[in-house]
């Protein structure tokens, strides 16, 4: 626990009469895996959509690496080094795994349109460089068998991993994983927890994860934030949260 990478201050957003997130504050340290849990409709994915600026904040602000990012456009968030995955996967369906991952390298491009029309040597060099980085991620997540396959033909579990891989290709500083284990079988979930460790420890990427699988949360995360009805219930180590009376009440009722 060294320095603060991301900080949310009094985030609030409502849709019509529904207060999706209310006065939510939390901070994520450099290098930790931070999980957000909560019953359905608690506002977990909304928090992600706020961070990636798909939604506008009503109140509050978000600080990333000391800069206020609450007013940036979604693509600028990516350029800052925040990558994300989606709950139901949002891949480029008609493209191969390889091309999906190459799109993940988009923010690292340095060529200009005119160079690309002529495919100057610089463009080729960049393509080969991109490919090398992509292959590193493919090796890390064991996606070799699927490299040339069209996303539309892949099983759901593989797609989830391709989405994580695509986010990793961006070489982000902060990775937002929205229910990475949903739709995975127990074995795949097990693999996921090892990969999370690799991503976090070997690549040094800070992770914020929304997750329902408490086993995975307990195993992988350093700290947990429990949400219910858009309000923060508790923040702490996984074991504390699992036994926290407010959290139990939110899940099980009185």
């Amino acid at each position: 626990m060294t320095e603060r990478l991301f900080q949310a201050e009094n985030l609030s957003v409502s849709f019509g009469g529904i207060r999706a997130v209310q006065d939510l504050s939390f901070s994520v340290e450099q290098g930790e895996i931070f999980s957000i849990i909560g019953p359905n409709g608690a506002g977990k994915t909304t928090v992600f959509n706020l961070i990636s600026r798909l939604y506008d904040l009503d109140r509050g602000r978000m600080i990333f690496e000391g800069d206020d990012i609450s007013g940036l456009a979604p693509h600028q968030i990516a350029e800052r080094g925040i990558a994300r995955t989606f709950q139901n996967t949002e891949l480029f369906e008609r493209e191969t795994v390889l091309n999906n991952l190459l799109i993940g390298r988009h923010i690292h491009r340095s060529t200009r349109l005119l160079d690309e029309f002529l495919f100057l040597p610089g463009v080729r060099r960049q393509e080969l460089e991109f490919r090398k980085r992509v292959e590193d991620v493919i090796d890390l997540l064991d996606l070799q068998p699927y490299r040339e396959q069209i996303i539309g033909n892949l099983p759901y579990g593989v797609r989830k991993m391709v989405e994580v891989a695509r986010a990793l290709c961006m070489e982000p500083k902060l990775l937002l994983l929205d229910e990475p284990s949903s739709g995975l079988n127990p074995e795949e979930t097990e693999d996921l927890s090892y990969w999370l460790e690799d991503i976090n420890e070997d690549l040094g990427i800070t992770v914020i994860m929304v997750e329902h699988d408490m086993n995975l949360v307990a195993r992988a995360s350093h700290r947990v934030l429990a949400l219910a009805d858009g309000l923060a219930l508790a923040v702490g180590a996984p074991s504390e949260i699992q036994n926290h009376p407010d959290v139990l009440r939110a899940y099980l009722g009185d």
Partner: protein
Amino acid sequence: MRFVLKTHYGQDVDLFKHSGQRFWYAALAIMVGLAPWIMDDFYLGELSLVFIYAIAGIGLMLLVGYTGLVSLGHAAFLAIGAYSHAYLLGHGVPFPVALAAATLFSAVIGAIVGLPALRMIGIYLAVATLAFAIIVEQVLSHWESVTGGYRGMPVPEAELFGLSLMGSQTFYYLCLALLVASLLAALNLLRGPTGRSFIAIRDSEISASSMGIHLARTKSRAFAISAGFTGLAGGLFAHKLGYLAPDAFTLLTSIQLLLMVVVGGLGSLHGVIFGAIFIGLLPQAIAFLRDTLPPAAAQIPGLEPGIFGLILVLFLIYEPLGIYGRWRKIRLFFDEFPLYRSATYRRQKSYLRTERVR
């Protein structure tokens, strides 16, 4: 069966993936290169028209097939290219400069049209581009000092270094050279970051923006590039027509262009070529067929558009991937022979939202 052994990442970047492709494309190049010695002027002219359609189709394909933005107004860009090229030629601008300027001018107009279109998708965008095409048509009809209005505007002869480019052979080679250049430019674009960002927008805007793709800028870029290619085709089309009048660039032309990319096969540059051959040569084929029919059947009015429409409907029902889709299936059959599995391309219903391909 063919197995390509990959030993270097560059092989995936190269345009030709294996020696078989190199051989067949070389054969094709020799064939189209020698065509003027084999064909008479009429067929050469028809083939030049196919090339012109193909250049316009590349533009439309980049927009519709790769970026997923539908345009019902591409006849307008064709018209802008044609008129500005003819206008500049008429004012003594040399041919290459006039053609380049017409291309750039169309691209700029494309970018401007793209701006309000950025917030629209699907049918709304189609209607907006349609409105744009109608505006352009009106401007062409009424801005008489520049366009000649309904009377039209003669297209000056194209010359390069004192040589006329208007002979059917030289014009054929001109169209061929520009088509090859356009194809290379489009292929290069598609294997680089910009092409991939177009595809990303087509398949998922939300995810594209989370990947750092600037939606507005990329879409307006797609519009500009698309309009540029179509404007270039317009410049050549002007020479093909010889005399410009607004009725050459109507809604029907836009629809024909759109048909070309859909029938050819959305999302492939092969499809553009197939579609251009289809659009360019089918009317001739139908006219040819008409001569062989019994007089009673041949005299039915509207036979040509009828057959045209029928073929289109059959394609949409049985081969939504277009001519290129059919081509790929046939090729795979031979590639995998004798191990081809008949269910490879069987269409399946998909239920998961993520399995649906829009």
